[in-house]
């Protein structure tokens, strides 16, 4: 893909970021095949939020859809970044885990089923504390079980990005797709500034944040597999591309030696800048999406 933006495409594109979680999930399926599971009228909402005077959402901010992508069975789970920062609670976590486990069971029965996670999330929902942490542990176990059979594709488009425990879920997935606007990291900018001081990380410096956490940098250093514009068609194409590729020969998270060597070779006594990291680490493991 050409990283120089084409103005005509830019004007005619349908923004993916502007869609809500439900619209995002639906947009990825073959037309007319998507159906929602455990939707808002099933009222699987958080029992913990009202106890803390927080208004719950009828789907707990987690949309699960089953259908076909490129004619093959797939499940898409989309987190709603506008509701409680897309945070994972007991219910939303259980929905995501169950979706992955059902996809895994289908694969074991001989029905190839891929999974796509649309992650706009700050990680664990603090109001649900340990239950959220437990949910993320279950999600990670379910990803590990499913990714042996079928690709688990993570998309983070923005504007929330993917942080905290759910960045680990992104790290375990078979493929990561990001937009230029997306951010991916274990600790978000505010958390780093709060814990280590403004000298370490100025969370009001947007250029710095995107130079470290942004889609371009993550792609250039091999942490993401595809960098796409904020264009629904490009996101959908990237997902179709990775579904057709199937399970990668070696998952990123299995390349322990590669990443350990990278860290060991890094001299932490001096300040590295994002550009140097790109030059040092290159696009190892990443590839361009062919369209």
């Amino acid at each position, binding site marked *: 893909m050409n990283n120089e933006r084409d103005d005509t495409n830019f004007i005619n594109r349908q923004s993916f970021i502007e869609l809500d979680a439900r619209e995002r999930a639906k947009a990825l399926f073959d037309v007319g095949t998507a159906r929602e599971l455990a939707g*808002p009228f099933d009222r699987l909402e958080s029992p913990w939020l009202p106890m803390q*005077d927080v208004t*719950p*959402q009828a789907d707990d901010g987690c949309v699960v859809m089953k259908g076909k992508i490129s004619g093959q069975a797939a499940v898409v789970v989309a987190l709603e970044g506008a*509701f409680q920062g897309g945070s994972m609670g007991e219910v939303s976590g259980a929905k995501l885990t169950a979706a992955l486990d059902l996809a895994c069971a289908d694969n074991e029965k001989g029905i190839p089923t891929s999974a796509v996670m649309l992650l706009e999330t700050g990680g664990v929902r603090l109001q649900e504390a340990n239950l959220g942490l437990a949910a993320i542990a279950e999600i990670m176990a379910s990803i590990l079980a499913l990714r042996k059979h079928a690709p688990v594709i993570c998309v983070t488009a923005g504007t929330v990005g993917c942080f905290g425990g759910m960045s680990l879920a992104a790290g375990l997935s078979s493929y990561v797709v990001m937009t230029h606007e997306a951010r991916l990291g274990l600790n978000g900018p505010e958390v780093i500034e709060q814990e280590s001081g403004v000298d370490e990380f100025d969370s009001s410096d947007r250029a710095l944040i995107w130079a470290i956490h942004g889609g371009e940098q993550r792609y250039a250093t091999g942490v993401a597999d595809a960098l796409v514009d904020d264009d629904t068609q490009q996101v959908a194409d990237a997902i179709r591309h990775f579904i057709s590729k199937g399970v990668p020969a070696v998952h990123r998270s299995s390349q322990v030696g590669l990443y350990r060597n990278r860290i060991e070779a890094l001299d932490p006594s001096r300040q590295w800048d994002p550009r140097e990291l790109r030059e040092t680490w290159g696009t190892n493991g990443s590839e361009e999406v062919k369209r």
Partner: protein
Amino acid sequence: MEQIKFDYPAKRKVSRRAHVGVVGSGDLEVLLEPGEGESSHVFIRTSVDGFRDTWKAVLDRFFAKYDGVVRIQINDAGATPGSVLLRLEQAVEVSEQ
């Protein structure tokens, strides 16, 4: 968080349910479902306390035009009255598509 309930007289049968909106800052979620009998029921959960009169004014205006027999649940995260009315009208539009 405050919970508020209202009932309105209604007569027209509604066949389809509708879900619109997000419980995000300044926005709200509306779940509209076909009801029974001759009245509509509205259940509101709002993150902003103390605006019962404003909710009543918005819903009075909505039900002045809308006569469907429905159950409406609203999960609100501080939407303005204008946004609330727009979301309600959007829910009706979706349910009558």
